[in-house]
């Protein structure tokens, strides 16, 4: 279930990942707030107290993250295309608290054997935005969470065995 992450030209990043579940289930986990807030959390220690996802064209997205020891941040976005259970196109920006330039994201789910292959193509943020994101403290959270990675790997293996 390894993930690939590649830059495409100067302006895009393409991520692929396999999941041991049908496209419909992977889609739902990306679109239903009660499922989204269980996994879309980044480094350990963050929670998502606000999760709004209006899964339809022109629908709005608002995810807010909170951490015990760090200032929170949030993203807002809008859906451009919503094609169940196959393709999502949306834009989002991070508020740090000033909004970053829009990240245009195309997410596709295709059946792959018993599972699903997800491909996500996103905008590579410009240098200034990357600098802001690095200095927002998210990276510090990352370093701490690498140390606790073993526990998470165990959880990932359980899912893989059930595949």
């Amino acid at each position, binding site marked *: 279930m390894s993930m690939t*992450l590649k*830059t495409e030209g100067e302006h895009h990043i393409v991520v692929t990942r396999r999941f041991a*579940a049908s496209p419909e289930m992977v889609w739902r986990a990306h679109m239903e707030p009660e499922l989204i807030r269980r996994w879309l959390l980044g480094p*350990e220690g963050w929670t998502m107290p606000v999760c709004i996802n209006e899964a339809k064209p022109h629908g709005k997205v608002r995810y807010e993250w909170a951490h015990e020891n760090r200032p929170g941040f949030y993203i807002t976005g809008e859906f451009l295309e919503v094609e169940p259970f196959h393709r999502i196109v949306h834009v989002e920006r991070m508020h740090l608290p000033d909004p970053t330039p829009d990240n245009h994201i195309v997410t596709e789910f295709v059946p792959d054997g018993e599972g699903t292959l997800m491909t996500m193509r996103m905008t590579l943020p410009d240098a200034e935005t990357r600098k802001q994101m*690095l200095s927002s403290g998210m*990276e510090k959270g990352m370093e701490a*969470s690498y140390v606790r990675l073993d526990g998470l790997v165990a959880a990932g293996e359980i899912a893989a065995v059930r595949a």
Partner: protein
Amino acid sequence: MEYLDTTFSALADPTRRAILARLAHGEATVLELAKPFTMSQPAISRHLKVLEAAGLIERRIEGTKRPCRLAKAGVQAADRWVDMLRGALEQNYRRLDAVLAEMKPGKEQEEKP
């Protein structure tokens, strides 16, 4: 930091990555860099220009030569951001694996109201 916009495309080329790998061992001239490649010196020079514009290498003047070396700050700044993204996504998807495994029993056919 202002070089970062061009860093990722500079790193996308295999010859340029090989040049960076060579420079990781120390400073080298264009002539030395051209040797292991079946490429002309002007072709290598063009790659070096891209790497220099991306802030990945630095060049100094020594008589008629312009030896190159890695500009570590440039390489690290680009890697750090991608590493952060990769780390965050890997953790997200590991959690998502667990969420999907729990969804499995019988819930797949469930209609959302």
